[in-house]
């Protein structure tokens, strides 16, 4: 909501005072406040997600699938505090994915395609959080919380966690394809066509991850070069791209149903269409 007044997409009438007073003004008057809420929530969530999954819990990059029971038990023991505290934070904030999914569904609603696309994406990605993220958090928390559990059982929990996280594929595969198809069919120029094809790249990462269910070692196991490192690189580029493009979409949004204006034209047209009409 604290979008700066210097932005080309800022509505007219925004004051030039302190950051706090500008934020308050936008909160009350910015006609795009719901969209900005969803966008900022997305950015904050990815920051929390990165901090928790990488430095705090060490669940990413994932440890090796070929470890022995004793090594797995040592890993749980060694990361005990990080796992418990990190995933507790995720349990508190995981619903921040909902505004992100809502904003992406909204991008499809703004396109010239059927509403069915946005709704399909919304349902798929709402479900995705459970097998694709929360099960790992529950299972690793259970592994870490109780000292002295049988190492063979810890190993089962460890496999369960990392396979559910890495191996939940179809939702992201088909979800990306739904977004891709909507972008390629769209006549309203909501998203650039190249991003449609980047969706295809993201979808393909879910295909190459399937061998993680089969291999225990090598480039195709769950932390291998192909199944993890290349995937993460593509996912990082994809996420960075859509966060930037969604921001541009919000700046361009004119609340019409025709083609989305370019950033410059939108800025000029805004004075007449949106001034003083927060709703």
């Amino acid at each position: 909501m604290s979008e700066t007044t210097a932005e080309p997409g800022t509505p007219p009438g925004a004051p030039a005072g302190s950051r706090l007073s500008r934020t308050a003004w936008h909160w009350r008057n910015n006609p795009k406040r719901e969209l900005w809420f969803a966008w900022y929530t997305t950015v904050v969530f990815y920051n929390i997600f990165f901090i928790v999954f990488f430095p705090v819990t060490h669940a990413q990059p994932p440890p090796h699938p070929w470890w022995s029971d004793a090594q797995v038990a040592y890993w749980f023991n060694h990361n005990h505090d990080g796992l418990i505290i990190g995933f507790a934070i995720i349990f508190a904030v995981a619903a921040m994915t909902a505004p992100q999914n809502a904003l992406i569904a909204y991008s499809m609603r703004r396109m010239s395609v059927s509403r069915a696309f946005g709704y399909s994406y919304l349902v798929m990605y709402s479900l995705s959080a459970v097998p694709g993220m929360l099960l790992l958090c529950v299972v690793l928390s259970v592994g870490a919380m109780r000292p002295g559990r049988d190492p063979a059982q810890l190993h089962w929990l460890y496999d369960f966690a990392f396979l559910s996280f890495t191996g939940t594929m179809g939702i992201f595969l088909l979800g990306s394809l739904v977004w891709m198809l909507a972008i390629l069919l769209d006549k309203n120029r909501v998203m650039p066509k190249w991003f449609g094809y980047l969706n295809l790249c993201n979808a393909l990462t879910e295909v190459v991850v399937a061998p993680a269910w089969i291999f225990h070692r090598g480039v195709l196991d769950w932390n291998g070069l192909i199944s993890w490192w290349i995937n993460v690189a593509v996912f990082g580029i994809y996420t960075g791209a859509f966060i930037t493009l969604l921001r541009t979409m919000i700046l361009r949004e004119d609340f019409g149903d025709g083609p989305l204006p370019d950033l410059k034209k939108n800025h000029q047209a805004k004075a007449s269409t949106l001034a003083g009409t927060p709703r």
Partner: protein
Amino acid sequence: MRRTDGELILFWTLPVLAFIWVSAFLLFPAFIHPMSPSMTAAQVADFYRDPAHLSRIRYSMILFNWFGVGLIPMLMLLVMQVRRMAHRTPILSYCLLGCTAGGPTVFLIADLFWLLAAFQPGRGPQLTLMFNDLAWMTFTAVVPFLIGQSLVIALAIYLDRPDRPVFRRWVAHFNVVVAAALVPAAFTGLALSGPMAWNGLLPFWVKNIAIGAWIVVMSVALGRNIYRQRAEDSDQRVAEEAAV
């Protein structure tokens, strides 16, 4: 005469469901005196092997499995209310839709773990302990969707038109309080005993009382809205007919 749209039928399923939920809650022996996470594997296995407990665990969890998702129609009625609010975009109703799918799914997973533990109570105590841990952690800690839906409802009300609001402001404040009451449950993995353990004051009593209070308060607010909106719609129709 207004055409039947079924909203009232969906709404009045709530008291019936609430009766079933409360019955199942009281039937489940591990809820009345919530099981402590500091119980040993042998104690947990004995709990499931006790014939007095076993049937009650199974029947209560079957009831929850049948009727737990029954909350979704109420949540959809709330989505319909959010859609009536003076928002520029459907973003907040989409957010609410996204959260509503998650809560019952998570509860069903906990339900499955409890039923699994009870299915073969004769297996090794360590395995029963693990399924019991998985059930309790899923049930207790995985609260994000409940927190999310309360905060989305609160935000939707705050961003509604202040002169003719769909819900009054206090409903938004109430939802923020409920969301805050649910947050400590997310941290239950930190303690095996005391007020933060899954049978403790904050993750069990405060959280579950908050959920119960949310269902009751939001049902009443929702019911009043649905009846008021119906009365307004029929007044409008009478006025239109008189004008013709």
